[in-house]
C-alpha cells in the first residue's frame, strides 16, 4: 500500500527536482554568462512557443545550436571547465534545480496514489443511469468501482455501447469529464483510489493547497 504521508514527507524533504542538461551530440561548448545560483526560465507563451533561457551554445561543423532551459529553476552546478572544449554526446553541462509548484506536487501525489481510467477512443461519455444517480445524490466519492463493472456509456455517431471499468478496486476520487462532453482517446475519465486511502489523500491535498510554499 502506498504511504501517502511518507510520500509527502519525501517531497517536503526535497521540494524540487533536478534536471540534468546534457549535450545532444558532440561539439564545442560555449556557456552563456551564467553562474551557480542564477535563475533561468523554461519555455513560455501560451503554446510554449518562446524558448527558455539559453544555457549554452554547442558548435559542430560550424553549426551553432542553442541549448535552452527546459524548466524554470536555479542553476546548481555548471561545468565551466568545459568552456570552449570539445565534448562527447551526453556530457552533462549543468544541473538546474526546479522547485515544484503546488499543482506539480498534487499531480505527483495523485499520479502515485490514483489509478487513472482513460477513454479508449474519441467519443461522448456518460455514466450509466444508476451510477449517475448515485453521483448526483451523494457525490462521486460514494461510488465504489471494481473490475468489470459497467460504468460508462460510450456514445459515438448516434450509437451507444456500454463500457466496463477495468482496473483496481476502489472509490472514484475525481471525475475529469462532464456528461456528454466529447473526450479524445487517451484522456483520463476518472481517477480511482483504494477506499481506505481516500481520507489520507484528501488530507494531503488540502494540506498541500494551504501549506505549500512556492519558490521562484
Amino acid at each position: 500500500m502506498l504511504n501517502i504521508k511518507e510520500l509527502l514527507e519525501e517531497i517536503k524533504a526535497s521540494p524540487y527536482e533536478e534536471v540534468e542538461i546534457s549535450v545532444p551530440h558532440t561539439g564545442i561548448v560555449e556557456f552563456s554568462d551564467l553562474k551557480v545560483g542564477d535563475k533561468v526560465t523554461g519555455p513560455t507563451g501560451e503554446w510554449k512557443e518562446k524558448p527558455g533561457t539559453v544555457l549554452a551554445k554547442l558548435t559542430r561543423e560550424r553549426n551553432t545550436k542553442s541549448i535552452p532551459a527546459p524548466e524554470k529553476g536555479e542553476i546548481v552546478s555548471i561545468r565551466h571547465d568545459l568552456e570552449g572544449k570539445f565534448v562527447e554526446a551526453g556530457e552533462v553541462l549543468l544541473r538546474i534545480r526546479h522547485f515544484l509548484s503546488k499543482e506539480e506536487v498534487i499531480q505527483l501525489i495523485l499520479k502515485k496514489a490514483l489509478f487513472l481510467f482513460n477513454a479508449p477512443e474519441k467519443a461522448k461519455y456518460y455514466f450509466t443511469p444508476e451510477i449517475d444517480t448515485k453521483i448526483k445524490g451523494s457525490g462521486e466519492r460514494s461510488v465504489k468501482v471494481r473490475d468489470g463493472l459497467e460504468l460508462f456509456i460510450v456514445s459515438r455517431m448516434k450509437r451507444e455501447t456500454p463500457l466496463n471499468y477495468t482496473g483496481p478496486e476502489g472509490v472514484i476520487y475525481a471525475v475529469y469529464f462532464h456528461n456528454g462532453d466529447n473526450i479524445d482517446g487517451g484522456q483520463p475519465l476518472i481517477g480511482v483510489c483504494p477506499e481506505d486511502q481516500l481520507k489520507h489523500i484528501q488530507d494531503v491535498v488540502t494540506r498541500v493547497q494551504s501549506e505549500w510554499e512556492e519558490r521562484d
Partner: protein
Amino acid sequence: MDTDKRLDALTKRLDYIKDIFKSNENANVTMLSSELGECKQSRLKNHLQDLDRALTRLEDLFSFLEAKLEKELTPMDRVRIVRHPQRICLNDILENVYDNYTELGGLGENSIDPAMVIAQACIARRVGNKVVNQPVMVIGQEKGHGQEFRNGGSVKPWGNAKALHYMKVAQAEGIPIHTYIFTPGSYPIEDYPGAAQQIAKNIYEMGQINVPIVAVISEGGSGGAEAIGLADRRLMLSHGYYSVISPEGAAAIEGNPRTGNRVSEALIASCAKKLCITAEDNLRMGYVDRIIHEPVLGARPHNYDFFRVLRSEVIRATNEACLSVKRVKFFKAMAIRRKRTQDGKEIFMRWALSNGARKRLTEKRHSKFRELSTSAYMDNRSLMLKLGTALQSTAWSTKSWLLYDLIGRGARAAKQGVEGIQAEVLQVKEKACSLIKKDNDSDPVGNNISREARDKILCLSSPAQQGACLEDGTWKYRSPQSIIDRTFSCPNSAEEGCLDLWGPDLFGDFGGVCITCGHHFRMEYQWYLYNVFNYADGFEFNSGIEAANPLDYEGFDLKLDEVRKKTGLRSSCITFETRMDGINAVVICIAAPFRGGSIGAAEGEKIIRAAERAQRKQLPLIAYVHGTAGIRIQEGTHGVLQMPRCTMAVRRYMDAGGLYLVVYDTNSYGGTVASFLGCSPYQFGIRSSSIGFAGPRVITETTGIKVPPNYHNAWKALARGHIQGIWDRREMSKNVQQSLLTMGGRNLYYR
C-alpha cells in the same frame, strides 16, 4: 432654460473641437475655451438679455473660429474626425439620404457581422405628378457611433461575403449599388472564408458586376475599403481619408517594427501627411471622381443640409454611370454636366440598363481602373521600344485570332467531329465483335494496342530514366548557400529526430529540403526561376518598368537605390515568357528580396501587362510568389489601387479562357493575397509557405487575439480551403507541368 440648452450645445461643440485637435496647442481653441468658461461663470450674475446677447456673440465666435480652424486641419486631424463617434455613420445616411429602406442580412447586433450593413433602399423621385421609387442596394461598413459590437467598422470575412452576396442580388434585380466605405481596415482573421481570400473574391466579382456601382469614401482603410470599393464612380467626403494603411500602422513600420513600443504622435502625424491620404490628394491623383463637401470640421448627424447634398451627389453619380453606357442620351448628359449639385434636384432617369449597356459598363469600369496610376512608376523604355511593343501586341492579337480562333476553332471542330465519328464506328465494331466472338472473353480493343503503347499507358513513371528531383545529376541553379562549409539543423529535429545536414548537400543536391521530415529551408527565387521555369531560355519583358517614389515619400528614394544595388532588380516583379517541357507560358515572379516583395504601381503595371500578353498569345499565366509583404505603403493610394487593377486584369484573362496558376513560396501576406493572388481558382503552396492577410504580430495588435505559431502555415491554409494543394519544392516542375496540362480554360494555345 433656453440659455442652458445653448450653453450645453456650445460645450459640446468645444468638446468636439478639443477631440479633433487633441494634443495640439491651438490659440483658437484656448480662446474658445476661456470665452465659454467666462460666459458660464457670468451666467448667474447677468440679466437674461445680457446673457442672450453674450451667447449670440459666443455662437458667432464659435462659427467664425470653427471656419478658421477648418483651414488649419492637418491630415491627422482629418483622421481623428472620421474616427470620432459623432461622425455620420451608415445608419444616419440610410435615414436621411434614402426615403425608405429595409436592412437585410441582420438587424443591429443580431447579424452575422454587425460591422457590415446592407439595406434595400428607395429613392423617391417626383416626375411630373407622379412619384417614382428607384430601388438601390446600399452596402457599407457601419461604425455605429462607437457601438462596441460594430467593431469600429472592421469587417470580418463573412461580413464581406454577405456584401458580395447582396451585390449579386442587386445584379440579378438590375438595380444600382451604393457602397459607403467607413472602415479602418478589415478584421485580419483567417477563419473561413479568410480575410484575404474573401476580399480577393469580392474584388474579383465586383469587376464583372454589371449594374452601376457608386462608392462613397469616408474612411477608406486599405483592403477593407477595396472589398466594396471597386466602383464606376468613386466619391469622397471632403474630411475623409483613403489610404493604403492607417497612419499608426505606417508609423509602426517606419519607427520601430520589432519592439512593439508605441510610436510618437509626431511620427504618426508625419506619416499621415506623407501618405497623401486626404480627399484633395486622392482627387489630384485621380483615384476619386469628386469630392462631396462637408460642413466645417466634418459632417455630423445633425447636418441635414449635408445629407441633401450627399443625396444629390449619389443620384448624380448613378445617373452619370448609367448615362456613360446608354446609347440614347441626347440632352440628359448635357443637363447632368451643367446641373449644379447644390440645388438638390437631380435629373430623373431610369437606372435599368439593357444587356448591351451592362456589358459596356463593365468594360468601362475596367478601362477606368486600367488607366489609373500609370504615372506612378518609371518607364525607362525608349519611345521606339514602346511603339514596337504596341505594334507587337496588335500583331499577337491578330496572330492568335487567326491561328487559334479562326483556323484553330475550325480545326478543333473538325477534330471533334472526326472523334465523334470514330467513337460511333468503334461502338458498332465492338458490338459486332461481341456478337461474332461470343465465347471469346478477351478484350477486342486492348488486343490491337502495340506493346509500346500499352506500356506507356499502363506503366507508371520509370525512375531509372527520369530522376525524381535531379536533372542529369544536378540542378541547373545551385544556391549560394550550398557553398557554405557547415551543417544546418532542421527546426523539427526535436520532434522528428532529423539529423544535421551538410550545407552543400542540403542546399545543393537536396534542394533545401530536410531529407528526414521534408522541412523546406528558405531558398532564393533564382532557384525556382532556373530549375522550374527555365528562365535561362526565357525572355524577360517590361524590365524597363521601374519602381519609383510617386509620393516623394521622405527617404524612400535612398532605400530604393540601396535595394536596386543589392538585388540588381528594378522592381519586385519579374515577368518573362518561357518554355517548359514543350509548353510556352508567361511567368510573373514576385521576389521577396526587393522591398519584401511589396507591390507598387510599377509591379502592378507589369502584372497587368503580363496578363494582357498571356491573353493575347493565349498562353498560361503562372504567378510564382517567392514572398510578398503586400502593398508598398510608401506609394500610398498608388499602391492600394493595384489591388483592383491587377485583379481585373487577371479576371479578364481568366474570362478569356486562360489558366492562372498561383504558387506561394515563403511568406505571402497583405493586399496582394487579398486581390490578384487570392482570386485564382488554382492556388498552391510550397511546403515552406505561410499565407494570410496579416502577420501574427499585426493580428495580436489589432484584435487582441494571440495566434499560435503555425497559424499561417501551408497546412493550415490548405485546411481552411485557401490553397488547393501543397507541393514539394523538388517536384514543383512536374506539378507545374501537370497543372498546365490538366487545369484551366478553353483558350490555351496548346489545347
